[in-house]
Protein backbone atom coordinates (compact mmCIF):
# COMPACT_ATOMS: atom_id res chain seq x y z
CA UNK A 1 0.00 0.00 0.00
CA UNK A 2 1.60 3.22 -1.16
CA UNK A 3 2.09 6.27 1.05
CA UNK A 4 0.75 9.35 -0.75
CA UNK A 5 0.52 12.86 0.66
CA UNK A 6 -0.17 16.33 -0.74
CA UNK A 7 0.95 18.89 1.80
CA UNK A 8 2.33 22.39 2.35
CA UNK A 9 4.94 21.26 4.91
CA UNK A 10 8.41 20.11 3.91
CA UNK A 11 9.21 16.37 3.92
CA UNK A 12 12.14 14.56 5.52
CA UNK A 13 13.79 12.25 2.99
CA UNK A 14 15.56 10.18 5.65
CA UNK A 15 12.39 9.72 7.69
CA UNK A 16 10.46 8.58 4.60
CA UNK A 17 13.15 6.01 3.73
CA UNK A 18 13.04 4.78 7.33
CA UNK A 19 9.23 4.52 7.31
CA UNK A 20 9.22 2.58 4.04
CA UNK A 21 11.91 0.07 5.05
CA UNK A 22 11.22 -0.37 8.79
CA UNK A 23 11.38 -4.00 9.82
CA UNK A 24 11.59 -5.27 6.24
CA UNK A 25 14.16 -7.72 4.93
CA UNK A 26 12.68 -8.33 1.48
CA UNK A 27 13.79 -5.03 -0.08
CA UNK A 28 17.01 -5.06 -2.13
CA UNK A 29 16.86 -1.68 -3.83
CA UNK A 30 15.14 1.68 -3.44
CA UNK A 31 14.95 4.21 -6.25
CA UNK A 32 14.26 7.79 -5.30
CA UNK A 33 13.76 11.18 -6.88
CA UNK A 34 13.58 14.57 -5.19
CA UNK A 35 12.51 17.64 -7.15
CA UNK A 36 13.54 21.05 -5.83
CA UNK A 37 12.85 24.69 -6.74
CA UNK A 38 15.62 25.67 -9.16
CA UNK A 39 16.62 29.26 -9.66
CA UNK A 40 18.92 30.25 -12.50
CA UNK A 41 20.88 33.40 -11.76
CA UNK A 42 18.75 34.87 -8.95
CA UNK A 43 15.90 35.35 -11.38
CA UNK A 44 13.25 33.58 -9.33
CA UNK A 45 11.98 34.74 -5.95
CA UNK A 46 9.40 31.98 -5.40
CA UNK A 47 7.28 29.27 -7.00
CA UNK A 48 3.66 28.78 -5.98
CA UNK A 49 2.06 25.41 -6.63
CA UNK A 50 -1.72 25.28 -6.85
CA UNK A 51 -3.47 21.93 -6.46
CA UNK A 52 -7.02 20.69 -6.99
CA UNK A 53 -8.00 19.66 -3.46
CA UNK A 54 -9.33 16.12 -3.54
CA UNK A 55 -8.58 15.32 -7.16
CA UNK A 56 -4.83 15.80 -6.80
CA UNK A 57 -4.39 13.35 -3.94
CA UNK A 58 -6.74 10.82 -5.57
CA UNK A 59 -4.80 10.99 -8.85
CA UNK A 60 -1.49 10.51 -7.03
CA UNK A 61 -2.84 7.55 -5.05
CA UNK A 62 -4.06 5.94 -8.26
CA UNK A 63 -0.75 6.25 -10.11
CA UNK A 64 1.22 5.07 -7.07
CA UNK A 65 -0.98 1.96 -6.95
CA UNK A 66 -0.45 1.48 -10.69
CA UNK A 67 3.34 1.70 -10.22
CA UNK A 68 3.22 -0.84 -7.40
CA UNK A 69 1.31 -3.26 -9.62
CA UNK A 70 3.21 -2.63 -12.84
CA UNK A 71 6.69 -2.93 -11.32
CA UNK A 72 5.74 -5.43 -8.57
CA UNK A 73 6.97 -2.98 -5.96
CA UNK A 74 7.32 -3.84 -2.30
CA UNK A 75 6.36 -0.28 -1.38
CA UNK A 76 6.15 3.23 -2.70
CA UNK A 77 6.06 6.79 -1.31
CA UNK A 78 4.88 9.88 -3.21
CA UNK A 79 4.79 13.25 -1.46
CA UNK A 80 4.06 16.48 -3.34
CA UNK A 81 4.05 19.91 -1.75
CA UNK A 82 1.81 22.83 -2.72
CA UNK A 83 1.76 26.49 -1.74
CA UNK A 84 4.56 29.05 -1.96
CA UNK A 85 8.09 27.60 -2.13
CA UNK A 86 11.38 29.48 -2.28
CA UNK A 87 14.43 28.52 -4.34
CA UNK A 88 16.15 25.42 -2.98
CA UNK A 89 12.96 24.11 -1.34
CA UNK A 90 11.79 20.54 -1.84
CA UNK A 91 8.79 20.09 -4.16
CA UNK A 92 8.31 16.38 -4.66
CA UNK A 93 9.59 13.06 -3.32
CA UNK A 94 9.26 9.65 -4.95
CA UNK A 95 10.60 6.43 -3.41
CA UNK A 96 10.06 2.99 -4.97
CA UNK A 97 11.14 -0.18 -3.17
CA UNK A 98 11.76 -3.51 -4.88
CA UNK A 99 13.67 -6.74 -4.47
CA UNK A 100 16.08 -5.65 -7.21
CA UNK A 101 17.39 -2.38 -8.56
CA UNK A 102 15.89 -2.34 -12.07
CA UNK A 103 12.18 -2.24 -11.09
CA UNK A 104 12.97 0.30 -8.35
CA UNK A 105 14.72 2.61 -10.84
CA UNK A 106 12.09 2.10 -13.56
CA UNK A 107 9.21 2.80 -11.17
CA UNK A 108 10.90 5.98 -9.93
CA UNK A 109 11.30 7.16 -13.52
CA UNK A 110 7.70 6.27 -14.38
CA UNK A 111 6.31 8.09 -11.34
CA UNK A 112 8.24 11.32 -11.80
CA UNK A 113 7.42 11.42 -15.54
CA UNK A 114 3.75 11.00 -14.67
CA UNK A 115 3.87 13.65 -11.94
CA UNK A 116 5.44 16.12 -14.38
CA UNK A 117 2.75 15.62 -17.03
CA UNK A 118 -0.44 14.42 -15.38
CA UNK A 119 -0.61 15.43 -11.71
CA UNK A 120 -3.11 18.25 -11.17
CA UNK A 121 -0.70 20.99 -10.11
CA UNK A 122 -0.09 24.41 -11.60
CA UNK A 123 3.07 26.40 -11.04
CA UNK A 124 3.30 30.17 -10.91
CA UNK A 125 6.73 31.78 -10.86
CA UNK A 126 7.38 35.04 -9.03
CA UNK A 127 10.42 36.86 -10.33
CA UNK A 128 12.92 39.08 -8.55
CA UNK A 129 11.70 42.04 -10.67
CA UNK A 130 8.20 41.77 -9.15
CA UNK A 131 6.51 40.16 -12.15
CA UNK A 132 4.92 36.71 -12.14
CA UNK A 133 3.88 34.12 -14.73
CA UNK A 134 2.24 30.71 -14.92
CA UNK A 135 4.61 27.98 -16.13
CA UNK A 136 3.68 26.42 -19.47
CA UNK A 137 3.39 22.65 -19.66
CA UNK A 138 6.48 21.42 -21.41
CA UNK A 139 6.24 19.34 -24.55
CA UNK A 140 9.35 17.41 -23.49
CA UNK A 141 7.56 16.26 -20.36
CA UNK A 142 4.59 15.01 -22.37
CA UNK A 143 6.94 13.05 -24.60
CA UNK A 144 8.76 11.52 -21.64
CA UNK A 145 5.43 10.33 -20.20
CA UNK A 146 4.24 9.04 -23.59
CA UNK A 147 7.16 6.58 -23.62
CA UNK A 148 5.50 4.72 -20.77
CA UNK A 149 2.21 4.44 -22.64
CA UNK A 150 4.00 2.91 -25.63
CA UNK A 151 6.02 0.61 -23.36
CA UNK A 152 2.91 -0.47 -21.42
Amino acid at each position, binding site marked *: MATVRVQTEDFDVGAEFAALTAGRHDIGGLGCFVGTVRDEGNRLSALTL*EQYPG*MTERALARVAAEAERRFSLLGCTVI*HRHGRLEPGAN*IVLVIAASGHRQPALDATHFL*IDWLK*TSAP*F*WKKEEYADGTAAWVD*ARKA*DDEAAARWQRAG
Partner: protein
Amino acid sequence: MDPHGDLTVLYFAWLRERTGAAEETVTPPASVVTVADLIAWLRERGPRHAAAFADAKVIRCAVNQEFAAPETELHAGDEVAFFPPVTGG
Protein backbone atom coordinates in the same frame (compact mmCIF):
# COMPACT_ATOMS: atom_id res chain seq x y z
CA MET B 1 -29.18 18.27 -19.10
CA ASP B 2 -31.93 18.59 -16.53
CA PRO B 3 -33.04 22.22 -17.09
CA HIS B 4 -33.26 22.76 -13.33
CA GLY B 5 -29.92 21.14 -12.55
CA ASP B 6 -27.05 23.05 -11.00
CA LEU B 7 -23.37 22.50 -11.76
CA THR B 8 -20.46 23.46 -9.53
CA VAL B 9 -17.76 24.96 -11.73
CA LEU B 10 -14.17 25.29 -10.45
CA TYR B 11 -11.35 27.30 -12.03
CA PHE B 12 -7.64 26.82 -11.41
CA ALA B 13 -4.44 28.75 -12.20
CA TRP B 14 -4.87 31.46 -14.84
CA LEU B 15 -8.48 30.41 -15.55
CA ARG B 16 -9.24 31.34 -11.93
CA GLU B 17 -7.44 34.66 -12.35
CA ARG B 18 -9.14 35.51 -15.67
CA THR B 19 -12.67 34.58 -14.62
CA GLY B 20 -12.16 36.18 -11.21
CA ALA B 21 -13.78 33.15 -9.56
CA ALA B 22 -12.40 30.01 -7.92
CA GLU B 23 -15.85 28.42 -7.82
CA GLU B 24 -19.33 29.26 -9.02
CA THR B 25 -22.68 27.48 -9.15
CA VAL B 26 -24.40 27.73 -12.52
CA THR B 27 -27.74 26.56 -13.93
CA PRO B 28 -27.29 26.07 -17.66
CA PRO B 29 -30.22 25.48 -20.03
CA ALA B 30 -31.22 22.02 -21.24
CA SER B 31 -29.32 22.60 -24.49
CA VAL B 32 -26.04 22.26 -22.57
CA VAL B 33 -25.30 18.54 -22.78
CA THR B 34 -21.52 18.20 -22.98
CA VAL B 35 -18.39 19.90 -21.64
CA ALA B 36 -18.00 21.64 -25.02
CA ASP B 37 -21.58 22.97 -24.73
CA LEU B 38 -20.84 24.25 -21.23
CA ILE B 39 -17.70 26.09 -22.42
CA ALA B 40 -19.70 27.76 -25.24
CA TRP B 41 -22.39 28.79 -22.74
CA LEU B 42 -19.91 30.05 -20.11
CA ARG B 43 -18.21 32.24 -22.75
CA GLU B 44 -21.42 34.25 -22.98
CA ARG B 45 -21.50 35.05 -19.26
CA GLY B 46 -19.35 38.15 -19.66
CA PRO B 47 -16.06 39.53 -20.94
CA ARG B 48 -13.93 37.87 -18.22
CA HIS B 49 -15.33 34.42 -19.02
CA ALA B 50 -14.98 35.14 -22.74
CA ALA B 51 -11.31 36.00 -22.20
CA ALA B 52 -10.69 32.96 -20.00
CA PHE B 53 -12.13 30.55 -22.59
CA ALA B 54 -10.78 32.39 -25.66
CA ASP B 55 -8.31 29.61 -26.51
CA ALA B 56 -10.15 26.34 -25.81
CA LYS B 57 -7.19 24.25 -27.06
CA VAL B 58 -5.12 25.06 -23.96
CA ILE B 59 -7.94 24.33 -21.51
CA ARG B 60 -8.30 21.00 -19.73
CA CYS B 61 -11.37 19.77 -17.89
CA ALA B 62 -12.25 17.33 -15.13
CA VAL B 63 -15.75 16.16 -14.28
CA ASN B 64 -16.22 14.89 -10.75
CA GLN B 65 -12.42 14.92 -10.35
CA GLU B 66 -11.74 12.70 -13.38
CA PHE B 67 -10.11 14.06 -16.53
CA ALA B 68 -12.83 14.64 -19.13
CA ALA B 69 -13.08 15.32 -22.88
CA PRO B 70 -15.14 17.96 -24.76
CA GLU B 71 -17.67 15.21 -25.53
CA THR B 72 -18.12 14.16 -21.91
CA GLU B 73 -21.79 14.48 -20.91
CA LEU B 74 -22.79 16.44 -17.85
CA HIS B 75 -25.42 15.72 -15.23
CA ALA B 76 -27.07 17.82 -12.55
CA GLY B 77 -24.85 18.10 -9.47
CA ASP B 78 -21.60 17.48 -11.35
CA GLU B 79 -18.38 19.18 -10.23
CA VAL B 80 -16.78 20.54 -13.41
CA ALA B 81 -13.23 21.95 -13.21
CA PHE B 82 -11.38 23.97 -15.86
CA PHE B 83 -7.63 24.47 -15.81
CA PRO B 84 -4.55 24.83 -18.04
CA PRO B 85 -2.29 21.84 -18.85
CA VAL B 86 -0.78 20.64 -15.57
CA THR B 87 2.79 21.42 -14.47
CA GLY B 88 3.56 19.26 -11.43
CA GLY B 89 6.74 17.52 -10.30
